[in-house]
């Protein structure tokens, strides 16, 4: 890192030092984002060779193959699932983070360190932990039986609720860490002013805190949506085959079917669809702010 900076500043001698940050940023962006994306885009148009790998070409067969009820349904399901997981995660995380920012410093640090620890868990570990917890033999249902709530233990996975639970758990710490800085900067006098004007704590939360933080909430939902869209292990461990998302199918095509061009085409389409969704959400949020309706 320092060697690179040295050579960069050596080459930039004579240039204004002000140019260094944007140049550095563009080089890194190109190296780690644009070039891989370009390679993937190129591969998506390549020709697949059965039994071998692929050869350079320009054909739309990979995209054409996607325009099929089966894959369109998967795309729709993946997006719906990620939206649901993102919304639920933010619905839980927002009040949690708001209370956290008003707690004592020590409590805040403890909670944040704990959440960072959860964030460091891989999808594989989260998937297998939840599958154990939701299993018939060792899961929480045994606890319910012991408490006399149920007659006999049951398996709660694989199922859609189990998958949703896993995705919410995966994105929850991430969501809290995104919300935390914005909510800590929220002027406490805004809530106090509402209290002085007769609003109960609950009413203050819904008529002041939530509307003031609306933009933050929308952008956090977008981030959580994109984050959960990439999950490809949880659908396989906690869901049934119909619950396999596009990310699972991309992995399947790329690794097990060795059809990299088709996997690349699906990835590009997924990227485009999520970009369109993000753009729509941002536009709606903006219009709302300009319109000034409360």
């Amino acid at each position, binding site marked *: 890192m320092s060697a690179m900076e040295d050579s960069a500043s050596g080459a930039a001698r004579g240039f204004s030092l002000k140019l260094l940050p944007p140049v550095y940023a563009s080089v890194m962006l190109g190296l780690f984002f644009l070039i891989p994306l370009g390679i993937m885009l190129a591969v998506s148009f390549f020709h697949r060779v059965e039994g071998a790998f692929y050869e350079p070409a320009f054909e739309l067969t990979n995209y054409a193959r996607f325009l099929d009820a089966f894959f369109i349904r998967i795309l729709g399901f993946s997006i719906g699932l990620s939206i649901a997981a993102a919304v639920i995660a933010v619905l839980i995380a927002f009040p949690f983070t708001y209370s956290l920012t008003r707690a004592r410093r020590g409590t805040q640090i403890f909670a944040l360190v704990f959440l960072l620890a959860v964030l460091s868990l891989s999808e594989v570990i989260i998937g297998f932990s939840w599958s154990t917890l939701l299993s018939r033999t060792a899961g929480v249902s045994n606890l319910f039986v012991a408490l006399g709530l149920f007659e006999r233990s049951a398996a709660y996975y694989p199922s859609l609720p189990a998958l949703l639970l896993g995705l919410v758990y995966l994105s929850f710490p991430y969501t809290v860490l995104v919300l935390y800085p914005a909510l800590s900067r929220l002027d406490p006098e805004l809530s106090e002013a509402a209290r002085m004007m*007769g609003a109960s704590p609950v009413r203050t939360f819904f008529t002041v805190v939530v509307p003031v933080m609306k933009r933050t909430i929308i952008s956090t939902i977008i981030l959580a949506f994109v984050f959960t869209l990439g999950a490809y292990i949880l659908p396989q461990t906690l869901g049934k085959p119909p619950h396999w998302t596009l990310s699972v199918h991309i992995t399947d095509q790329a690794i097990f079917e060795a059809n990299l061009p088709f996997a690349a085409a699906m990835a590009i389409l997924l990227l485009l669809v999520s970009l369109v969704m993000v753009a729509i959400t941002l536009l709606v949020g903006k219009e709302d702010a300009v319109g000034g309706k409360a």
Partner: protein
Amino acid sequence: MSETPGGLELQNLTMNFGSVRAIDGIDLTLPEGKFVCLLGPSGCGKTTLLRLIAGLQNPSSGDIIFNGKSMTGVPSHKRDFGMVFQSLALFPHLNIAQNIAYSLRIRGQSAAEMKARVEELLEMVHLPGVGDRRITQLSGGQRQRVAIARALAIHPRLFLLDEPLSALDAKLREAMQVELRQLQRSLGITTIVVTHDQREAMTMADHVVIMKDGKVQQYGPPLEIYRKPATAFVADFIGASNLMPCAVTDSAAVELYGRKIVTTDLSDTLRPGQEAMLSVRPEDIHILSDVERETNSLSATVTFIRDLGAQVEIMLQHGEQHLIATMTPKDKPDVAVGDVVCVEIPAEACRVFPA
């Protein structure tokens, strides 16, 4: 939502933050319908005291009695007090009218009632017709007025303001002080304002509470506090004072740097021989360039003359003791920097405090 404002009584009020005692056993009765300023240096506990009255914080011990009723256990949203915050705390997601109507909406008023009241309030703060504008479209002074209108929307029983004018520039602040005072007088509402600006307190208040280290130093009408400060701290904080160490000689005089100073203010608690602090207002000091007096005078060297046009300040030094004398230009003595002059300290201008 009583229409009659009431008096406020603080009983042995104490507030601890960990090991820090922010409010230290305050007993105080604030009369009904008056304008009271809580005045003191930063960290004296004045804002904490206001927050305790507002119910935004709960006292560690003691009680707050309002209109004969204990406020202990009454949450801030049930006290029907109006408050203007230092940051103003106007809601950025609502327009001006919606901000002002917030408390009315909470109380379930109809749209027509709210509209009429908002218009009335905007008229009152001299901002008619701005109801549908955004907060960001207003200047600092206009936001200030909106915050005041919003706090008064429900006809609060008590009006609290936390350093309300600190964000405004000096000229606007002076104008708002007068306006706020006139508004309070016309509404007759019991009002408590936190400020660190003694000029602001002198302009607005019927009564001033001088605070230091969580304790009340003095409470009374501003002019009375100015003329008869209870402690050396108050004498220095309210209007500048020349504070000089002295020793009590008898029931009517002190000794100051070897000179006898006759005073009319010696209290019975001061015994002859006791160390004390002599305080004289800068405007009470007379500079005599030629005469030498037996008593109530001190020789000093002129170190600096600050001529501000409307007022002249002459800085003097006697040994290690610095003194300031202020006067109008027509009373300015004919002295120059470096002159040794005779400083007269009139007997009736002296205040003596225990050291």
